[in-house]
């Protein structure tokens, strides 16, 4: 091979590898979240797939002294003293999951549904998009063709894996337990389960 051909080959590989890193960057970032949720947990053991976990009241109330000593610290880095965080990882290959939200009584909350392959949000349940009344939302994976039960709103996910991030506003220190009670009422059940 001539030097020119070597440079052409070398350059092509460089450009391809460069694009791969840029393309996969968000996916690599969220794979850290996947591992934190399903493997490490946040101080109380791993969080099973298709389960939502709300950060403990004590951690929100006193983030420095009550910080979890084991597991991932992703939930406590990011300096958030506004909303109780809720996280979960969905696997929709075995069927849709139903997200149940209680009546939030006008309180700001959001449940953000993120496609972990590219870190974009395909849907929200929450005050901005669905209001604060109680409701049931059917989250289905690609290719699901069943019928949606009456009273449920369907949300189609572009991916069988979904990262769920929930936020419930805390008005004051005295309000933490009320916000926690509401956040833990947001839960998932399998369709028909």
């Amino acid at each position, binding site marked *: 091979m001539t030097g020119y051909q070597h*440079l052409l*080959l070398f350059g092509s590989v460089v450009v391809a590898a460069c694009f791969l*890193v840029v393309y996969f*960057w968000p996916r690599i970032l*969220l794979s850290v979240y996947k591992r934190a949720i399903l493997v490490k947990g946040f101080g109380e053991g791993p969080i099973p797939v298709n389960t939502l976990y709300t950060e403990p009241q004590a951690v929100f109330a006193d*983030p420095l002294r009550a910080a979890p000593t084991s597991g991932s610290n992703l939930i406590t880095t990011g*300096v958030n003293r506004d909303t109780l965080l809720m996280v979960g990882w969905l696997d929709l290959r075995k069927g849709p999951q139903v997200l149940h939200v209680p009546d939030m009584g006008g309180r700001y909350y959001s449940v953000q549904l993120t496609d972990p392959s590219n*870190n974009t949000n395909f849907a929200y349940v929450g005050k*901005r998009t669905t209001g604060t009344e109680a409701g049931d939302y059917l989250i289905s994976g690609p290719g699901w063709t069943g019928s949606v039960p009456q009273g449920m709103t369907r949300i189609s996910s572009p991916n069988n894996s979904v990262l769920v*991030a929930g936020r419930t506003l805390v008005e004051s220190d005295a309000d933490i337990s009320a916000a926690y009670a509401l956040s833990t009422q947001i839960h998932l059940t399998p369709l028909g389960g």
Partner: protein
Amino acid sequence: MTNRTYTFLTAVIGVICGFVIIRSFLFADSLTVRNDLVQGFFVGAGLGVVAVEILARIKATRINGWITVFGCGLPSNGIFMRAACARIFPGPVNVPQEAMYWRTGVDGAGHTLSGEHDYILHFPPGGLPPNDAFWSLTMADEKQHFVANPIDRYSLGDRSGLAQNPDGSVDIYLRTATPAGHQSNWLPAPAGRFNLWLRVYLPGAAILHGEYAVPPVVEARPSR
């Protein structure tokens, strides 16, 4: 790892990759196919890291020292926008209609924020961030952790009973020591470098249209 360290490491990777590229031009005739592939892969991956850093700087909006990105988290975003957002907000970032975030590690003059100095964030009358949910200003140390302080206060915002000046403006005091007579508006700073995060949830139209500018952090006594 702090942001500063990360940027430094990225620059080092860029320089090494540049060196390998220039060298391969000089000695192109002595290369082997195996070296083309192996070196090309590593140099490309290194340049990918550098490219994400450059993209983040291109897509970011910097006003008065505050950095944000408009339009993160949207399904219509292309690969460059997605990478830039993931670099600046490392996590599942909200769409702008849900929440906007600004961060800064510098004051309005571009100097690094540090507890060695006293600062004021001055919101003019009617100039608090417009929103339909809440806003907050949160203190973080160099590694984006909460800052220990005697009054256990980590953030200030719409729910913290901020005192107004007679003209309706609001001053937030960013310093290590209590400002006499202004404790309600004191956000305790650490001794060393620090960062500030401004969150606005359900931001108002002025924010979404890019018309709202977060005021600069101003050093209170520049010649101390």
